[in-house]
């Protein structure tokens, strides 16, 4: 059913592979739509407790397929119709989402990685805000997320100069969480995803909700949202399991409920 991506669920992990390797996984409208649908499926699949987005071949995602861009195109409408809904679907999802950045993440491919909760980078990975090189501005939520991750000054630099950020620099500036060697790539991505999938999933979702509220709400409203979040977390099976395991001096086994 998917043509531009591959979607697989194994061991409570949903894998979304961008699958246009000969185009460096560049976006076409169909791929925007399929990523959105895949994230939606993973969101509503009770088996899924972690989502991993990665690229087939040597790139993570090279951004918009420029062969699809023409003079008559309404760029704003493309964002409203295709990129916006995809990014919103990711933002709405309350399960942990990992971008396993296996190669270059350029333009909207960079934005896609930014919209995820964690960025693991291989030695081959790089980030590039390429928009300026074709006279455009970073889109798909790019600067919203980038500013939060690296601050206004660095975000300005990356957006305006459009220089490539290496994997190690990305980790150093707080853009990525972890640098993984090429040899250990698949194994470490899998173990990171498994680790996330074994944590109290509901609590992770509520943490995501709180973090979103930081940029969207006043402090008083944030505190109220936090109180509601803790009320919900306090009623989960995983909270009880955590308490019991602590009392019984054993490792907790979380069900995600």
């Amino acid at each position, binding site marked *: 059913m998917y043509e531009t991506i591959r979607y697989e669920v194994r061991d409570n992990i949903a894998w979304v592979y961008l699958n246009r390797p000969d185009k460096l996984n560049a976006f076409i409208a169909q791929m925007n739509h399929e990523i959105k649908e895949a994230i939606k499926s993973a969101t509503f699949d009770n088996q899924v407790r972690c989502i991993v987005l990665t690229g087939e071949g040597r790139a993570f995602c090279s951004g918009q397929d420029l062969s699809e861009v023409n003079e008559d195109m309404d760029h704003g409408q493309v964002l409203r119709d295709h990129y916006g809904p995809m990014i919103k679907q990711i933002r*709405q999802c309350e399960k942990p989402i990992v971008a396993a950045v296996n190669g270059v993440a350029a333009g909207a491919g960079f934005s896609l990685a930014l919209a995820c909760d964690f960025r693991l980078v291989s030695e081959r990975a790089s980030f590039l805000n390429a928009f300026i090189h074709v006279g455009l501005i970073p889109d798909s939520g790019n600067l919203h997320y980038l500013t939060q991750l690296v601050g206004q000054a660095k975000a300005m630099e990356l957006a305006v100069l459009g220089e490539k950020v290496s994997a190690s620099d990305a980790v150093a500036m707080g853009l990525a969480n972890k640098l993984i060697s090429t040899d250990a790539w698949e194994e470490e991505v899998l173990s990171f995803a498994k680790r996330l999938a074994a944590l109290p999933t509901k609590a992770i979702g509520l943490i995501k*909700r709180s973090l979103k509220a930081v940029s969207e709400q006043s402090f008083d409203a944030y505190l109220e*949202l936090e109180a*509601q*979040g803790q*009320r*919900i977390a306090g009623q989960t099976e995983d909270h009880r399991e955590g308490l019991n395991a602590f009392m019984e001096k054993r490792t907790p086994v979380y069900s995600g409920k």
Partner: protein
Amino acid sequence: MINFEFIETSLTENIGVIELNRPRQLNSLNRKMISEIVVAMEDFDRNDHVRVIVLTGKGRAFSAGADIDEMTEDDPIRLELLNQFADWDRLALIKKPIIGAVKGFVFGGGFELALCCDVLISASGTEFSFPEVGLGVMPGAGGTQRLTKLVGRAKALEWLWTGERIPAQLALEQGVINKIVAPELLMEEAMKFAERLAKQPPLSVRLIKDSVNKAVDSSLHEGMQYERKNFYLLFATEDQKEGMKAFKEKRKPDYRGR
């Protein structure tokens, strides 16, 4: 308690709860359902044990709107003779506070029903909309009137003409709803609010609703005279004596609703 087909009612302590109960149809409203809601409301309104009414929907949506199948074949004469909106008019006569707990979709007739509530508590992620324009009609159960009185002409026209979906946050900013809460806690938070209201002196609560409704629908002068009469009237209640006595004695008042 009366047996209903499309709604479910329950009474806990002094709060009457009405739940729309067609979850598989996203609580789409048919005529029987509206008349059941009215009957249940009036029943609670007359029940001495009930101080507050909570209206909500079972399943993931409050209500996705009117049952379209029911009206595709309608003609003006049939509609005039049916006089279905008379039921809706009765909702406006309920004297006790109605708290709407809404989530998911609040569309069309569902939005109009929500606007019949006095206080709206909404789950985050809820969307409101008047999509009637897209079907070649328009709201007929107060949508154009109540919405305009709430948000003003400019926003009302924009929303009614486009049929666009209004996210909860915007509905809050525009004064359509009172509060946004986590979806998991919608009923808990609505009941908490209801319990808080249920502790207030019922006759004060009742006449405040009566006076505020007057403000929506009359001149300032007329409203001021009306308010005054209600204010005087409360001095005939036991609760007024109790409230002021408790204040002097620095203790919590015990209101009886008399």
